[in-house]
């Protein structure tokens, strides 16, 4: 058996089977167990080595040829697979406490498989096509049947689709540069096309508007999943470009571009989050801010390696899961997610309120919470290069911090004499409690998750050094 078959084709086939089933509990159980097994397999199984279990011996080969192209999942990729499928388990488990589990588990598994294929395909420019397929599969996931498709979904579809032609065409130019590295005109054209492609793919300003719109329109848990999955894969895809092409990595303008873009996203995301009146939109802007931080850390990768970029991944996943689950609970019980409509809900939804506020504060970099160690390291590293950059980054974080206080104020504005009670289900209470504990534990002991990503830099032969 080959690794691509195990981690790409098998989940994709299972996703198809799951979409035929009706029972939400069965779907959730199968999807969670299967994804957990894939995570453990990525963690424990060696590649290209003969293994004997009982009287049965087998070997997991790292590549699979398909129509003249290759899907390669080598030994360094196993930690990334464990991270991706492990995070998917967390999302699927969280979704089990909502009504979106059926669609998220089946379509989500297919999306994960397609995006893993995007990271595995060689030549890696084919990834743009696979990402586009994942985008198209996301449409039924993000759309609520019976409602008119919102602007956010339409823009998501348009912007993500427009990314594909730019990246594919840049691939053709890059092949030309490989053959003729001295052609500066070609280098410039390729760089512009790559930049445009990733601007669409990563929802970089001014093509970010779909994120807050989508978080306002769709089910928070499905949007959260999409906003975790797509930027993460797009960032790894972008790092693949940087790792593969030395002229791009060493381009003098790259530092300025990445700093400006990253800072723009951090500042705009943070400040705009501070003035939002819709809880979903705040999460959307927080995601924009986080993508900005990731772009800033890519820029720092030359000096400190990829560690800062990687430290962001696990806390971000955890924060988004807790935030999205909390929002989902409110969406089911409140007329809307506007601040005016959630006033005083802390008395009736204490777990969801705490989850939402803690996740918000954690992503803002609040000490003792999961986001703090990574953000503090980024602020420290940015300060060594420029004080103005770190001040702007802090302004962004402060904006998100301020939004958490606004939300907290709205939640606690309960009428006098209102009783404390919990309207969350037992499953929601348990999952959110685990989330709180994890948020604090990751803040206090960030080194505990070190084994989960410490091998990840090996994916990149140049950036990982």
């Amino acid at each position: 058996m080959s690794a691509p078959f195990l981690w790409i084709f098998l989940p994709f086939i299972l996703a198809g089977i799951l979409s035929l089933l009706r029972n939400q509990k069965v779907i959730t159980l199968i999807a969670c167990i299967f994804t957990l097994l894939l995570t453990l397999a990525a963690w424990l199984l060696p590649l290209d080595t003969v293994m004997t279990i009982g009287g049965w011996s087998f070997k997991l080969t790292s590549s699979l040829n398909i129509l003249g192209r290759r899907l390669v999942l080598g030994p360094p990729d196993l930690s990334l697979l464990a991270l991706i499928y492990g995070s998917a388990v967390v999302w699927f488990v969280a979704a089990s406490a909502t009504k979106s589990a059926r669609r998220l588990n089946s379509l989500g598994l297919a999306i994960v498989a397609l995006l893993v294929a995007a990271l595995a395909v060689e030549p890696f420019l084919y990834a743009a096509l696979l990402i586009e397929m994942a985008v198209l599969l996301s449409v039924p996931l993000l759309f609520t049947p019976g409602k008119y498709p919102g602007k956010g979904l339409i823009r998501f579809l348009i912007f993500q689709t427009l990314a594909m032609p730019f990246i594919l065409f840049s691939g053709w130019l890059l092949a030309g540069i490989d053959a003729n590295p001295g052609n500066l005109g070609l280098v410039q054209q390729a760089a512009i096309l790559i930049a445009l492609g990733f601007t669409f793919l990563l929802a970089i300003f001014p093509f970010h508007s779909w994120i807050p719109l989508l978080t306002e329109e769709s089910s928070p848990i499905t949007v959260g999943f999409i906003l975790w999955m797509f930027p993460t894969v797009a960032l790894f895809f972008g790092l693949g470009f940087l790792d593969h092409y030395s002229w791009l990595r060493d381009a003098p303008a790259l530092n300025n571009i990445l700093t400006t873009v990253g800072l723009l996203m951090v500042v705009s995301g943070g400040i705009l989050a501070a003035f939002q009146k819709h809880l979903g939109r705040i999460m959307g802007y927080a995601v924009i801010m986080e993508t900005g931080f990731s772009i800033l850390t890519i820029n720092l990768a030359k000096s400190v390696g990829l560690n800062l970029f990687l430290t962001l991944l696990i806390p971000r996943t955890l924060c988004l899961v807790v935030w999205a689950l909390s929002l989902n609970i409110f969406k089911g019980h409140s007329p809307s997610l506007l601040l005016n409509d959630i006033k005083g809900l802390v008395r009736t939804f204490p777990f969801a309120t705490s989850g939402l506020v803690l996740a918000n504060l954690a992503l803002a970099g609040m000490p003792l919470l999961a986001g703090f160690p990574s953000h503090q390291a980024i602020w420290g590293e940015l300060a060594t290069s420029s004080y103005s950059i770190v001040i702007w980054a802090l302004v962004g974080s402060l904006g998100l911090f301020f939004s958490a206080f606004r939300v907290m104020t709205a939640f606690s504005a309960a009428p006098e004499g209102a009783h404390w009670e919990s309207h969350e289900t037992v499953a929601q209470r348990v999952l959110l409690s685990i989330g709180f504990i994890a948020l604090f534990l990751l803040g206090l002991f960030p080194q505990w998750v070190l084994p989960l990503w410490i091998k990840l830099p090996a994916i990149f032969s140049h950036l990982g050094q």
Partner: protein
Amino acid sequence: MITILNWTALLIALITSVGLLLQRDWRVGLGLLATQYLSIFWLVQIHWPVSMAAGKLVTGWMACAVLGMAQLSNSNTEESEEAWPQGRLFRLFTAGIITAATFGLSLRASNWLGLSLPVAWGSLLLAGMGLLHLGISAQPFRVVLGLLTVLAGFEILYAAVESSTLVAALLSAINLSLALAGAYLVTMSKEGQT
């Protein structure tokens, strides 16, 4: 003779893409899109074998059929365009600007990529018209028409530089999936309204 046919294909692309911008009836729109795929087929077969180019034509027509069936199941509900502006004169004017701009660009692109002018212009024209369509439409059906037009424009240009069968197959799959996604949005949103 071949040159004349190339220019004819470009003319069809121009007429159909402008028609797509101006029409309000989905049946006419799909008819224009299906005709547009004929011109795409012709412009693509200049660089690809006819059998592969025919794949594009068939895919395009299948996409039209998928969208048509979705609309047909709810044909009694006529949608009004929400996006501003709605005026046909304005659309015609902007289409004229796009035509002129893409002509200027295609002169450079044909030199750069070594393509004939009808291919370069046809490609950029469709991409430009598709983008214009996306800019002034908000309905899922029209947005999908716009995206299919943009992709068609890109595919003409890309066919000149890449002839991989796998890429062609994946692009066809994307076109079909896009039509299916559009059909899903059209059908499911209307089902909820009735």
